[in-house]
């Protein structure tokens, strides 16, 4: 199976060290045929966005369990805009309360997966929202 070489950058922004979820999702995306670039823990939004541009990924998946989501997601979106890279889709996961999910989506975060989300759903979402649409949109 081929995904037309869809590349996804999986990142942990901020200072929290909970990487169980991000690694499980990275493995699930790999098994589904995606090329995953994992940038490791404790990254600043600048590092994440610069890596995304250099790696020319189709999407950034951001994992946050630190409560800093209302700071870090908007920062990443605005850095992407500065770098002429708003076509890179941003999705995320973590302990994010419902009303914050709505605010983040309004700001341009494509999707948020909260605790209990299955990797099957995440893979399916990436397949439909990142795969083909991003490739044909180029």
């Amino acid at each position, binding site marked *: 199976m081929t995904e037309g070489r869809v590349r996804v950058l999986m990142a942990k922004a901020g*200072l929290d060290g909970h990487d169980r979820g991000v*690694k*499980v999702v990275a493995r*699930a995306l790999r098994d589904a045929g995606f090329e995953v670039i994992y940038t490791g823990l404790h990254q600043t939004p600048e590092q994440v966005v610069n890596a995304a541009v250099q790696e020319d990924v189709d999407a950034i998946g951001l994992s946050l369990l630190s*409560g*800093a989501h209302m700071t870090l997601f908007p*920062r990443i979106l605005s850095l992407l805009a500065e770098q002429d890279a708003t076509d890179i889709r941003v999705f995320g996961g973590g302990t994010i309360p419902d009303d914050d999910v709505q605010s983040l989506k309004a700001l341009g975060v494509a999707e948020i997966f909260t*605790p*209990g989300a299955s990797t099957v759903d995440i893979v399916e979402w990436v397949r439909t929202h990142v795969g083909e649409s991003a490739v044909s949109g180029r």
Partner: protein
Amino acid sequence: MVRDRTLEEEYRIWEEERYGRDRSASFTTLSDHAVKPLYSPLDTSPESFPLDIGWPAEFPYTRGIYGNMYRGRLWTMRQFAGFGTARDTNRRFHYLLQHGVTGLSVAFDNPTLMGIDSDDPRSVGEVGRTGVAIDSLADMEVLFDGIPLDQVSTSMTINAPAAVVLAMYVAVGEKQGVAPEELTGTLQNDILKEYIAQKEWIYPPAAGVKLIVDTVEYTIEHMPKYNPISISGYHIREAGSTAVQELAFTIADGMTYVEACLARGLDVDSFAPRLSFFWNSHIDFFEEIAKFRAARRIWARLMRDKYGAGNPKSWLMRFHTQTAGVSLTAQQPENNIVRTALEALAAVLGGTQSLHTNSMDEVLALPTEKAVEIALRTQQILAHETGVVNTVDPLGGSYFVEALTDDMERGALDYFKRIDELGGVLPGIDAGFFQRELGDAAFHYQRQLERREKIVVGVNEFVTSAPSDIPVLKIDPEVERSQIAGLTELRTRRDDEHVSAALARLQSAAERGDNVMPFVLDAVRAYATVGETSETMKRALGAYREPAFV
């Protein structure tokens, strides 16, 4: 009565004649350990009572470390708390003390855990979010305002900058007129599990262990009532390990600390009685109870037989337990009250010395006061209503529990052998052994959930679409601004020359390899910040960078 059949024959006949058809092909624990349909005397040996089970307060302590356990004294109900500024958390502490908690437990925010100040650009958005923001002694003074440190024992969940926070605690005591000798409490101070699981680090592993030995040495000399390390399996489990991995990796970490202290020239009986442990209590009831019982037994055997400790107090594994945060679900969050109650019951039946019960909303954010109160009431119901405290180790002798306890011990010993082959815990971390074991276990469990081989109510079965409407605690962004303002003000108020001189002395001490504690204390007393102190030591000890293991 004389038997005309052997037990094995009786079992076989029972299985053929009495046992019906199972509703599932296999039954396994949460950690995927196979469970048999029935346990009987066939699963234990006649020697198991004298050798492996024995009496409470006697070697190998499988049944508990105290003779009369909760008939003598209930466990300490210790609720982990911390958010916002020191002032906010101080208020929560007073609330908890009024409602009957018997020990405090401080949660620090991510910048503090990483040894970074609140005004550092990397801290943006994180100040006071998942714990209390502490930048300097000034914040610690506020945190313990009105709390007499000679009467309330305090546990502090801090690791990479543990030496700095311990020094601040000592300095707050000084201000209150409480000598270090009088201070009681526990410092988590377990850096190895940070590299393995929790990932809040500053220095490379060997330097991290060296700092821990420094704090142990310091407390032996100056703080006889204080526990300098809480060797923690909790985070290893939260990061995805199985019960056996939690048990094995944590005790392996413990052995590493013991060996490092011995290498420093400390007498095993001088420090071993102050080592304590911290376990996770997950949702698989009997597996957890077996884990706690096996842990005590393994540790007692290691301390007596491998490390030659002569003082029976050195053989005792005292431990704190927290219910499993990772077992909580964002869906139907009220169900979490039930999960936490069962996990807490397992911890009590496993003989814990202190317990934190999670609040139902912790999967969404920091807990509200109401949710914390329910969690605390859960412990009080266990202690005062259920009667489970009336006898010591009520499950001792259960064929199933004893067999599972043996399995746990065997599983841990197998891992010890593998870790030895790798050269020990530090080379194992370098090689990514633990990180990969955890990643594999977490991924395996996730797959089981998705194939619905494991069921979580509200997540992959009995799902409802009704949104939860429990209230969620929000941290006001104003917290960050006021914390930074306070820090800026401190930087102008304090004597900078004094600070720089103390930090310079600290750096040379760290470079020489001296015990840094007296120098950290001086820096802290001069109001050097957590960030400045950590940065100074980093210049001497180096910085840790994450290896690439996915």
